[in-house]
């Protein structure tokens, strides 16, 4: 059986895409979602195996199923706590996050949330520091400490990913030990057009970094499910405290994302006005252009 995919962008079609957190999927039960405008079902077996397939009438959502025995499956894998699949021809490996394997880390899905915006707009917001004092007031930033200091961005040809380093931003109450604010260090990676990984100074271990990632599942060009993965050093807090914090942050970004216009990311350099603080966003837009991505963006006129 051949199915013509709705998404005609081969770059996006041939990627791995996240569907759901394994921890939130009842074992042996058919679950439904939408990926690239198509209904997709998935299931998790009691041994942790995952399966995904184009939804069909004989396996409705909620029915019991043995994940291993489903015919005509899509490629699938379990990685970083999520079920991943592809509607095209994805490479064998997903991008690496080596820290995920470190045994003393807390790994959890902060939430999966629907946002009425394109995936690239959400990535660009994830890379942005300048909005901290305005959108995450008194948490990730506070006026008048609004400056985005010079940082470095490179597109790693070898790993085919964007890397922004030496990023610093003033955070109020930056350490548990004092009430003073201080600069916090960040490193951003964009290893996948719709996924980004952030590393941030850990307050409990000055040699290691907390990892926060956003994996965007494109339901269509202007709607995503955002999966927020945390992989942090924290022995004290309950899961729900950690999740609540990240949901608060994301909930603050959401109305900004949903008020961006147009919803798809314009790749024409003259569509919007970049400033030096937007170096990583400029690199991201160029990278998407070079890859020839057309899904979720407004390509620059040739």
């Amino acid at each position: 059986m051949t199915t013509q995919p709705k998404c005609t962008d081969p770059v996006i079609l041939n990627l791995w895409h996240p569907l759901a957190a394994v921890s939130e999927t009842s074992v042996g039960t058919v679950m439904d979602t939408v990926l690239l405008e198509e209904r997709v079902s998935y299931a998790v077996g009691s041994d942790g195996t995952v399966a995904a397939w184009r939804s069909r009438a004989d396996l409705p959502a909620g029915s019991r199923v043995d994940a291993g025995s489903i015919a005509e499956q899509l490629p699938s894998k379990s990685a970083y706590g999520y079920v991943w699949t592809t509607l095209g021809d994805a490479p064998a490996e997903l991008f690496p996050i080596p820290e995920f394997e470190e045994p003393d880390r807390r790994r959890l899905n902060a939430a999966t949330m629907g946002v009425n915006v394109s995936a690239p707009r959400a990535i660009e917001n994830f890379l942005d520091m300048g909005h901290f004092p305005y959108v995450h007031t008194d948490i990730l930033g506070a006026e008048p400490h609004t400056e985005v200091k010079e940082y470095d961005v490179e597109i790693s040809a070898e790993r085919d990913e964007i890397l922004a380093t030496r990023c610093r931003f003033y955070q109020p109450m930056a350490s548990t030990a004092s009430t003073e604010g201080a600069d916090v260090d960040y490193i951003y990676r964009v290893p996948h057009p719709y996924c980004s990984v952030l590393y941030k100074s850990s307050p409990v271990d000055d040699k290691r970094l907390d990892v926060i990632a956003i994996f965007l599942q494109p339901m269509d060009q202007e709607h995503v499910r955002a999966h927020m993965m945390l992989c942090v050093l924290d022995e004290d807090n309950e899961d729900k405290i950690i999740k609540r914090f990240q949901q608060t942050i994301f909930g603050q970004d959401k109305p900004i994302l949903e008020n961006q216009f147009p919803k798809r990311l314009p790749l024409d350099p003259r569509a919007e006005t970049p400033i030096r603080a937007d170096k990583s966003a400029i690199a991201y837009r160029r990278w998407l252009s070079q890859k020839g991505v057309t899904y979720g963006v407004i390509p620059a006129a040739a």
Partner: protein
Amino acid sequence: MLDTAKTRWHPIAASHDLPFRHVFHAQLLGREFAVWRADDGYVNVWENRCLHRGVRLSIGINDGRELKCQYHGWRYANRTAGCTYIPAHPADAPARTITNRTFPAIERYGLVWAAEEPLGGVPEVEGLAEGSLLALRGIPVNAPADLAVERLRGYRFQPSDALDGNAAEISIEAASAFSLALHARSGGAETLAVFFVQPVDSGRAVIRGVLDTAEDHPARLAILRRHNEALSKLREAIEREAAAMPAPTPLTPEFQRVSPELAEMPALSADARKAPLRVQAARKWQAAEGIAGFELRPISGLLPTFQPGAHIDVHMPNGLIRQYSIVNGPGETDSYSIGVKFEPDSRGGSAAMHESVREGDVLAISEPRNNFPLRRDAVKTLFIAGGIGITPLIAMAQALQNQALAFELHYFAQSQAQLAFPDRLETLGPALVPHRGLSPAETAAKLRELLAGYRNAMHVYLCGPGPMLEAARAIAAEAGWPEGAVHFEYFKNTNEIDDSTSFEVALARSCLTLQVPAGRTILEVVREAGVEMPSSCEQGACGTCMATVIEGEPDHQDVYLNDAEKRAGTKIMTCVSRSKSPRLVLDI
């Protein structure tokens, strides 16, 4: 019908939709607008997207003078929609060409009118006299505008003075593609109702009705309610009809592209020494003893956006060119105000302004240039002004005041009568601290007191006579202020310029090597070779003609760069400074 609609004026809001400090969300022919009234009454109709990242400005904050985007705090000025501040880069002045798209607006018949590409004016309606009108509640309808206009033909209503009947005689007085005038007559009472239908999108409209009934009619509320009820019923019928038809494709507005310079970073430098603007001295007054105030209004159009700390070149009737700081607060964008001190021993610039320029005279001025940008990320800002040095600092203080950021303005002057712009000073409240009649020794002691207690992220801005600035800079350095936290502007360079050296200057980007002989400046030689260079004061005070040094050792003679910058040797003021090495390579 919609294809010609772009050239017409349409109502987009009622006047009462724009109360104090609100941003109205409007839409016309698919294009969204952020509509806001500034405290000075001006109605701004802007494209509803921040130029930075496309966020709707209708969710932004109207602070009475500027509109602030919620995403990154970019501020856009009343009238011009020019960006005045980018908080992510607090030490830079934004490229002044970052200007949001604006649309013309007119208030008429109790409505706010706008147009995309207007030909002609707002429709003239016979029988609707300004001042005795009653604007009805706007009724949004999920239906195409033409259907709404068509169905309005069947609208029945009673004259305002005979509300209780139901048999008024209705006649159509006038009709056009987007409006309909109906006349109701019952006994001796008659009322004209004009309905303008705003095409919001291909399948959405707003019915905006206006009656020729006095706004203070005793039955005003009953009239408004009666029409609201009848129009709501009509809406139901129209929407039922529209729902049965195929939904039209929504209109997609085209967004203008930003200029190519703005698409790349960094922004280009300022223009050469030109005076492209023509302004009229609309008002001249005594701003203080010995200081004349001038309010300069544009001859036509809008003045360019300015930022606090900016100055303009004024080209005087006698051919001299002088720099004056703009003293306006944020959002005061309909004119520039400057203060000119009378200097009896000057070369004639101040005398020309004081004696020759009269109210009504036209002057040529440059676009505003900001070489004294104000950071707004300080935990506290100190302003220290001496005499006429108050002018840039008063603009800065008003900007911080408007944003409720912490600052103090210390103003040293000979006497109370010499405190300039008292009306503006008054708005600053206790943040203004005047110091009157102090001797140089007393001034130094006071500066020592003010500059004690430096904390991280404090900034001080100094402007005044040379000796006072020298003293203040020395005291600040002693008190532990890092050079990067001490910002200053001299209004003239009193150093004696030594132009006796000769050297070679290579322009790296222009691929030119030039000889600078004794008695000539780098700026003159470079210009003569056909390379455009901006400049303003041409005495090493304002910073406009700055160039980057790639190689060689500059011989600094300016008062613009601070000591660390001079030691670094990477910047040079080409109007006065020269070279210690035989060859200087500049990034020009």
